[in-house]
């Protein structure tokens, strides 16, 4: 047989078709028999091996739950907040999707025709979900309009058509008005399946399906490709795995018969691309392969059980599987030791090449041991690797590798590349295929050394390894692997398994490439005032140090006028209204600035005064808009209105903050904590006089928020100084607050950090007393103090431990009592303080500088918008100028210099650095200055003629 379906619920391949009604088939209205057949078939399969028949063929429950989480995410795309909702999973099996749904929905209901499956689900999930073994006909006892979301993943695809039609009507009944059904189905070329076949996948015509769901009382909201780490669609056959979203309408459903009729292939339907295969043949073949796979893993007992199960079909099956059967029985008879001996030889041979060519990789392989990595057999008997899920095509890895390589080489970006870097080695089939199919250098990054080691043990990869250009294992090594001219090819299987790492690798690759090869003009817009104003300066410095073309938009000069408006009115609403008009004017100033000097990326600091209108206009001109939202999203909620105008929002909080900002319409939302600028925040040598002015045994720098007042009121008896604004002038603060609570400059507070023995860093809260127990983000002060080499006591924050090791690099407190105890402890322990501060400084310099943050930010932007920025650059004025200036090397060099300075591609830009009398002018400079003066003179003469001189 050419292809080997595994499990209809697992999508590891499969035969799909729509239903064929044999002569004398069951009558439409009488499909109880079919329901009983379904129940019996699925009970049998569950009894045999629920993970194989209900999941992706995973070897353990953990992997099954993991895949359930993944698939639930796909099914619930865009639904938003589900916490108060009721979910119904039809065809829930053993509850693969129910388990993750429990954490997301108020009520979770599972329905399956197999009581074996329901029983198992109950055993696995306990009382969490409501579970029903259905009759295969309807959804009783569920009441009308009782469910918000219905989903069915890998279930109705194998149901007979009339059963599916009946379920559609039932979905309509149980769904509340406005409810939604999410179904995973196959759409495309219709083909025939036996009506009583409960295993084969059915494929419907997209148009017919849409008509049928409308008849069932739904509107088709969308239909999307289902993309999983393994092949689920059969494009070559025109059969596509899809997820559809159906919105319940108020139209009453038509009859089941009518809906069924709409779904069935008509007389003019295309003939089935393949002859129908009997469900029994399929089950036989799948279980045989499963037995082989288990045997390959060395799971002899289960392999034998699977073989036994398969053989129950031998008598009724019509397919000829003698070769396969022989191979499996032979494997089951072989001793595991002989396999290991063979793999040892292979490993030694492969490793010799790795040691010779990639010694760093070889050393990383020695310490490899990952029990999750398994070598198994594919459907066609080839060796493949699994790590919870298949890292190679489970059926035909060799052919799949060839197809992948062919497709990759057809991509334009790949055609233009000098060399190719593949993310993911797996068993190496695709690597072999690609390196054979191209003359470009091929390199590989494998996230997991155990996977590579497994491949080296199981396959003869000598030729492949010899052909490889570069090889890296793990993320750190990958960073150093990329070269100019490379193009990155991410394998879906590895990407699915190492999603976050793939995303980081992508960022590193495109980000590094972007930083190297893109030269957008990046404008940085600050606020009128406030904490993000100094961050703007740090950001600018970092952008410059990264050799970006930077434009500074400092609008702090507009602040006095903004506040002056306050003096004209009593009515605060009127003040706000006029101030908003003023901010709109400031926004317009920015737009005019872009009209004069274009930009490619706009990075807005928090509270930057730019309106949605202007952001929209900028985006329409192709400018990428970025917000660094360095605020507490709960306290400052302007993101609700503005997030949708930004292509990227960088936040200092994770989780809910990111979710909500994403839901508010932001393009990409990425966590990017605050940092330090080592040029500003640094250890200082202070004079005795400075120490006296700025120093104290204990200090706090910051504004007088509620919780700080509440905590520091009890510090009156300590040698404690407070620096900052908004503190009460009353007792006890009158003696603690320095210099009348004026606003400090960064250079001043760095002196305080340096001159203080214990710096207290208490994150602000307007609502809570003392330490906010829900506090998450880490304030800039934490990083700045660390960079200044200062010792700090900082309140506990949930995200702090990601940045510093509490107790080692910073000392944390949970409440005011602890704070006072720690102050008392550390006051007389200068050496301990120093050691902690030194470690904090080392950490912050290695991981938390603005240079690193801005590099990360740009990596994300350039990774996501590389092509956009590249196209923009190529069609921009500078490219035209460079192309045209190419025959003149000196002019080109001058253009390059002007370009790097951030000048515009205009004559004034080319000569902006020429100051007469400061050194010899080259001939090119003389010519450009000649042109500059010609234009000036002509304009002057024209103005004279027109009487415009002033």
């Amino acid at each position, binding site marked *: 047989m050419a292809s080997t379906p595994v499990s209809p619920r697992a999508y590891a391949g499969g035969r799909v078709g729509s239903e064929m009604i044999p002569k004398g088939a069951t009558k439409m209205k009488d499909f109880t028999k079919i329901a009983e057949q379904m129940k019996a078939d699925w009970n049998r399969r569950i009894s045999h091996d629920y993970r194989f028949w209900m999941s992706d063929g995973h070897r353990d429950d953990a992997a099954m739950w993991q895949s359930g989480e993944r698939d639930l995410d796909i099914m619930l795309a865009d639904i938003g907040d589900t916490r108060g909702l009721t979910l119904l999973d039809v065809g829930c099996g053993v509850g693969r999707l129910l388990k993750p749904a429990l954490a997301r929905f108020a009520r979770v209901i599972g329905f399956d025709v197999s009581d074996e499956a329901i029983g198992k689900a109950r055993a696995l999930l306990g009382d969490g979900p409501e579970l029903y073994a259905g009759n295969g006909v309807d959804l009783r006892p569920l009441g009308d309009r009782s469910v918000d979301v219905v989903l069915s993943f890998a279930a109705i695809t194998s149901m007979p058509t009339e059963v599916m039609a009946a379920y559609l009507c039932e979905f309509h009944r149980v769904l509340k008005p406005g409810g939604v059904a999410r179904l995973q189905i196959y759409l495309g070329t219709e083909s025939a399946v036996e009506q009583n076949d409960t295993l084969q996948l059915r494929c419907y015509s997209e148009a017919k399906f849409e008509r049928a769901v409308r008849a069932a009382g739904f509107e088709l909201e969308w239909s999307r490709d289902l993309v999983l780490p393994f092949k689920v669609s059969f494009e070559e056959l025109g059969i596509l795995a899809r997820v559809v979203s159906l919105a319940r309408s108020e139209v009453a459903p038509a009859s089941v018969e009518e809906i069924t009729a709409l779904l069935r292939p008509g007389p003019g339907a295309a003939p089935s691309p393949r002859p129908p295969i009997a469900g029994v043949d399929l089950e036989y073949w799948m279980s045989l392969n499963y037995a082989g796979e288990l045997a390959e893993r060395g799971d002899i007992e289960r392999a034998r059980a699977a073989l036994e199960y398969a053989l129950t079909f031998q008598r009724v099956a019509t397919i000829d599987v003698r070769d396969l059967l022989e191979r499996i029985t032979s494997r089951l008879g072989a001793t595991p030791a002989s396999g290991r001996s063979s793999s040892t030889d292979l490993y030694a041979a492969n490793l010799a090449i790795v040691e010779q060519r990639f010694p760093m990789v070889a050393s990383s392989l020695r310490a490899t041991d990952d029990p999750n990595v398994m070598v198994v057999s594919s459907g066609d008997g080839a060796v493949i690797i699994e790590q919870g899920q298949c890292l190679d095509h489970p059926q035909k890895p060799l052919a799949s590798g060839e197809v992948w390589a062919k497709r990759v080489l057809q991509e334009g970006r790949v055609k233009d590349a000098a060399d190719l870097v593949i993310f993911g080695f797996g068993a190496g089939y695709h690597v072999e295929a690609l390196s054979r199919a191209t003359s470009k250098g091929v390199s590989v990054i494998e996230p997991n050394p155990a996977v590579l080691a497994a491949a080296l043990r199981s396959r003869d990869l000598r030729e492949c390894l010899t052909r490889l250009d570069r090889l890296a294992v793990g993320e750190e090594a990958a960073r150093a692997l990329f070269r100019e001219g490379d193009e990155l090819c991410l394998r879906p299987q590895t990407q699915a398994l190492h999603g976050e790492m793939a995303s980081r690798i992508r960022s590193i690759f495109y980000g590094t490439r972007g930083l190297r090869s893109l030269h957008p003009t990046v404008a940085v817009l600050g606020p009128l005032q406030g904490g993000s104003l100094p961050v703007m300066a740090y950001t600018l410095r970092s952008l410059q140090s990264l050799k970006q073309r930077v434009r500074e938009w400092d609008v702090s000069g507009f602040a006095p006028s903004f506040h002056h408006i306050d003096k004209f009115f009593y009515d605060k609403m009127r003040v706000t209204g006029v101030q908003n008009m003023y901010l709109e004017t400031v926004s317009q100033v920015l737009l005019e600035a872009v009209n004069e000097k274009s930009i490619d990326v706009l990075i807005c600091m928090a509270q930057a005064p730019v309106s949605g209108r202007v952001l929209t206009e900028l985006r329409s001109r192709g400018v990428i808009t970025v917000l660094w939202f360095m605020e507490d999203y709960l306290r400052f909620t302007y993101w609700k209105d503005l997030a949708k105008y930004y292509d990227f929002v960088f936040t200092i909080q994770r989780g809910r903050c990111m979710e909500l900002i994403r839901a508010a319409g932001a393009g990409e939302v990425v966590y990017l904590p605050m940092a330090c600028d080592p040029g500003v925040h640094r250890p200082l040598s202070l004079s005795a006089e400075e120490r006296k002015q700025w120093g104290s045994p204990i200090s706090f720098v910051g504004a007088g928020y509620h919780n700080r007042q509440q905590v520091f009121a009890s510090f009156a008896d300590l040698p404690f100084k407070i620096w900052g604004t908004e503190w009460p002038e009353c007792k006890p603060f009158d003696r603690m607050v320095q210099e009348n609570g004026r606003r400090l400059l960064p250079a001043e507070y760095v002196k305080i950090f340096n001159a203080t023995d214990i710096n207290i860093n208490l994150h602000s809260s307007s609502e809570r007393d003392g330490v906010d127990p829900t506090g998450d983000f880490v304030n800039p002060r934490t990083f700045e103090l660390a960079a200044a080499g200062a010792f700090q006591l900082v309140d506990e924050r949930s995200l702090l431990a990601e940045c510093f090791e509490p107790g080692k690099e910073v000392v944390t407190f949970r409440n005011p009592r602890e704070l006072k105890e720690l102050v008392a402890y550390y006051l007389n322990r200068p050496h301990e303080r120093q050691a902690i501060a030194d470690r904090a400084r080392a950490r912050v310099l290695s991981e938390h500088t603005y240079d690193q943050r801005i590099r990360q930010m740009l990596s994300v932007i350039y990774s996501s918008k590389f092509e956009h920025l590249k196209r923009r650059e190529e069609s921009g004025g500078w490219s035209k100028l460079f*192309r*045209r200036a190419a025959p003149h090397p000196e002019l080109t060099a001058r253009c390059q210099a002007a370009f790097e300075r951030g000048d515009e591609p205009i*004559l004034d830009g080319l000569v902006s650095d020429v100051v007469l*009398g*400061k050194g010899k002018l080259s001939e090119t400079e003389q010519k450009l200055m*000649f042109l500059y*003066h010609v234009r000036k003179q*002509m304009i002057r003469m024209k103005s*004279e003629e027109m*009487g415009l001189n002033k």
Partner: protein
Amino acid sequence: MKRRYPHKTNILLVNITRLGDMLQATPTIAGMKAENPDAKVTVLVEKQFEEVCHSIPNIDEVVGIDLGMTVRSLAREQDGIVDAYEYVTEFVDTLRAKNFDYCLNMSSSGYTALLLKLIGIARNGGWTADEEGHRVIESDWARLFATSVFHQNRQYNSLNLVDVFRCSADVIQHPPKLMLNIEPAAREHAETLIREAAFTNTGPLVAIQAGASQEKRQWSPAHFIELIKTLTNEHQARVVLVGSKKELSIIEPIKAGCDSPNVAVFAGKTTIPQLAAVIEACDVLVTGDTGPMHVSVAAGTPVVAMFLASAYGYETGPYSEGNLVLQPVIGCGPCNPNKPCSQTDCHETIAPGLVAKLTMLRAAGDVRSIPPGLVDPRRVIVYRSCFDSHGFCDLQPLTSNEFDPLARFRAAYRKLWLDDLGGLEFAPAERRALALAADEVAGVEQLGELAGRGEALIDELKRLIKDVRVSGRALAGVNEQLSSLDRRIEEVGYNFSHLGPVARMFVFAKENLSGTDALDLASQMGTIYGDLRRRCRKLNEYFATV
């Protein structure tokens, strides 16, 4: 006259942007050719003036630079810059290949200076640029040119720029007129135009140029209408309104306002040689300080010229004998050419009736005197253009100049420069020793003293330079004193505006120090201080004599 480069063989004359400038260069061109008969003269002009240059005698080759195209390319920016760059490269290469041995650039613009630097001609009579792009003016006469057009100093100058230009090129022999060939065909065209005008009057044929380069220099149409009505109605004159097509917007309302068959509009109907032929056929041209005024001089037709607003008769007056120049007496004039004027009071100092009478007088013949009472000397001075005994153009007042406070200074400076730069001899009476204290030029003694101190410091500097034991610090100390002294000299030039020209000459000379040898530089500086001291002394002498 002291001459820097009397012998020239392959000359480039740069005079790019204005027709008047080109015509004003004609005595110089003729002089160079007369003094170097085998020399080749090439003129570099803006493309649009290329054709008219073929009508100028003594020019062997005309090279046109297309500044319009260059500016249009630059307006496109981006790749347009490279188009312009390549054009310049090609243009410079073309000029380099011609191997000029001498260049005279009397345009003070930055771009011509840079262009000449790029071409790299060894000997220069006017503006060029140094390695760092700084302006360089090698010749004293060219520096005087720059000094004289420096706005603060303009009124102290009485040398026509044609002569200053000529002297910059070391030309002594020159015709006392501007030159332009008028071909028979042009004359025929002019005759046809005049014939077709079918004037009914039989009086003098008067050409009127109403347009001007700047609005503030343009007499009002109402005044022109009044003038023309007087001329046509009272004096039977026939009037032709000349000018360019662009000026029709001014001229047509004048024609309409006159409503006379004896007024014809030729503006826009002539090329420059045809314009010259029209003016040649006229008895007199009434004009402001314009290109056609110089065309008229070249065509031999006398002019009655009003020097309004920023125009200054001594500076750019008609370069031939017997023209009438009207210069308003007004506190703000001549004003800065680069500033606009919203209240052109100077226009009202000249009445249309006066212009009509002077026009008729001049049409009748050379005017050596003005009938008493015709001109109010508090409002306007009428001059007659002439040449002095040394061949330099001058203006002879036909009316009292008692209300011109700077007349004495102007006369003194004229002698100073002709003596000091031109090496001309003046009568002993004019060279007597210091005059009475009351006649001294205020501040000149102070300036002379500063110059003397400079000479002493330079002597000290030279001594220190020669002494190898001397520390750099000592040298720096003297340099510091010199810097502060130079600053003081410049300040005195500003404090006493009548000393502006000598102080400015000092500044320009200093800007042109060249070389890297310390001793040589010190010697050059010494000469500059010496020049200043000598000029201060002479200025005082000549001031007393006038």
